[in-house]
């Protein structure tokens, strides 16, 4: 179990993370969502012991994580910028990780470099933005660290590379279960990987739920515009789209069976809500919900 108790991270007078208390059962894939400047990276920095919280504590299996050799050896935090010296060759980065990380899989790293078409003889300075991100992905996945944290690691990666990253992450996670925390803005693209979702906003925990439960919080109603308009009246609308006479509305409402039957008799169809729609609704300034859990 990973526990954060009253974690507060400050930069001078700026409070980046404000009294966050969170329990993260191990062996799951977490999605950490938040708007720009919401405190995601600061929270992850505290989780990975890259930064000591101003207040509060991070515990892993009951032990304080900060400067704990056993915990830090088993934690891999890949930031959005590649943490290396620009003159380092990719091959050197892989060797270094292999020397330091007891769970490092050199063969898997070589396979991933090949997959992302990264020349290990290249220096970091000569890699493109997307290639640097891909190297970060290789370091993160091949470390096989029991706690792997990937903070917007996809930056600059093209769609093909991102798809390969998500596929590899899932396959390797299934083969080698561990705790993975993914911070991302590409919510819809990655949402299917998340087992649990954590949303923070302005440094505070807004929500921590199972992804399926979160999807069940809302519903998407699709059908003739007039019928949809009549059905959704009085409910909180998270988002909507119209095409011709067809309208699709996402609601922050879980309809009962008789509501669904009533809607279907009016020619409406019901579908799950998108995590991104919920995220936008929850973090929009005008309509803020109270944090759950």
């Amino acid at each position: 179990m990973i526990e954060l108790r009253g974690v507060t991270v400050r930069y001078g007078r700026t409070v980046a993370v404000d009294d966050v208390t969170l329990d993260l059962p191990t062996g799951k894939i977490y999605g950490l969502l938040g708007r720009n400047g919401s405190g995601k990276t600061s929270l992850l920095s505290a989780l990975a012991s890259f930064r000591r919280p101003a207040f509060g504590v991070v515990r892993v299996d009951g032990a304080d994580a900060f400067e704990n050799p056993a915990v830090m050896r088993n934690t891999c935090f890949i930031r959005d910028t590649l943490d290396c010296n620009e003159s380092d060759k990719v091959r050197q980065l892989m060797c270094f990780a292999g020397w330091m990380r007891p769970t490092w899989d050199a063969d898997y790293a070589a396979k991933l470099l090949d997959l992302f078409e990264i020349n290990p003889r290249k220096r970091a300075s000569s890699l493109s933005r997307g290639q640097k991100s891909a190297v970060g992905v290789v370091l993160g996945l091949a470390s096989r660290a029991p706690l792997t944290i990937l903070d917007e690691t996809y930056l600059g990666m093209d769609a093909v590379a991102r798809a390969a990253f998500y596929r590899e992450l899932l396959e390797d996670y299934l083969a080698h279960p561990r705790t993975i925390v993914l911070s991302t803005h590409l919510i819809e693209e990655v949402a299917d990987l998340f087992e649990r979702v954590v949303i923070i906003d302005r440094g505070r925990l807004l929500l921590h739920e199972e992804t399926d439960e979160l999807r069940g919080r809302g519903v998407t109603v699709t059908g003739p515009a007039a019928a949809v308009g009549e059905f959704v009246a009085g409910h909180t609308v998270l988002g909507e789209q119209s095409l011709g006479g067809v309208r699709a509305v996402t609601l922050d409402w879980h309809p009962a069976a008789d509501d669904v039957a009533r809607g279907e008799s009016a020619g409406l169809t019901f579908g799950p809500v998108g995590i991104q729609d919920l995220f936008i609704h929850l973090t929009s300034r005008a309509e803020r919900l109270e944090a759950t859990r």
Partner: protein
Amino acid sequence: MSVTRVLFRVYRPIILPFVAIIVVAEVIAATAVASAQDLGFSMWLVLGGQAAKYWLLVVGIILIAMQLRQFVVNGATRHEFLAGMAVFGLVLVVGWAVAIVLGHGIESAVLGALDKQGPDYPTFTAGGALREFGQQLPVSLAYFVSGATIAAGFYRWRAWIGLVVMVGGAVPAIVADALLGFNEWGGLTHDVPYPGALAASLAATALVAWGLHRAISDVPIRRTAG
């Protein structure tokens, strides 16, 4: 693998060329001077002694500015890094102090065999060797600690605080140089008795090393220095 072992792996391609360059420079410079006149001073003490301390200063800076982040990112604690860095630094410092003595011995023997020692040349003796070792070791150690502390100031704090820390961090190097630095004849450059000079130098180095440990023990791991 321990931090110290990894550091030696990383620095092997740097240490060996540095030693080779110093040795080649010594051979070329000593040969050039000796071909014109008898050598009245030790070229090795000038080249090896001076070059090594500045090199160790730079190594100390690089270790904090570049390697600290790399090690922590790969799962080492700050304390593990500092401990590994201390062992690595000590081995370098002791190794170079021994090299200074051996190099002077070889230089003295070769010049003696070629009859190229001038009247002022510091002929190698057992007592002289011990003194050179006893001077080079604390001076190199002080420069290493100063380099690391100067870098730590800029890594942890803003630039203007880093400047203040730089002044404090330079104290061991300044004290060691002033009290234990040796000239081209291998002698002390002042009249302070060796035990007192050694004690003062080690005290300044230990104090700043303690400050370095305090500064790094919970430092945020930044993407870049400064």
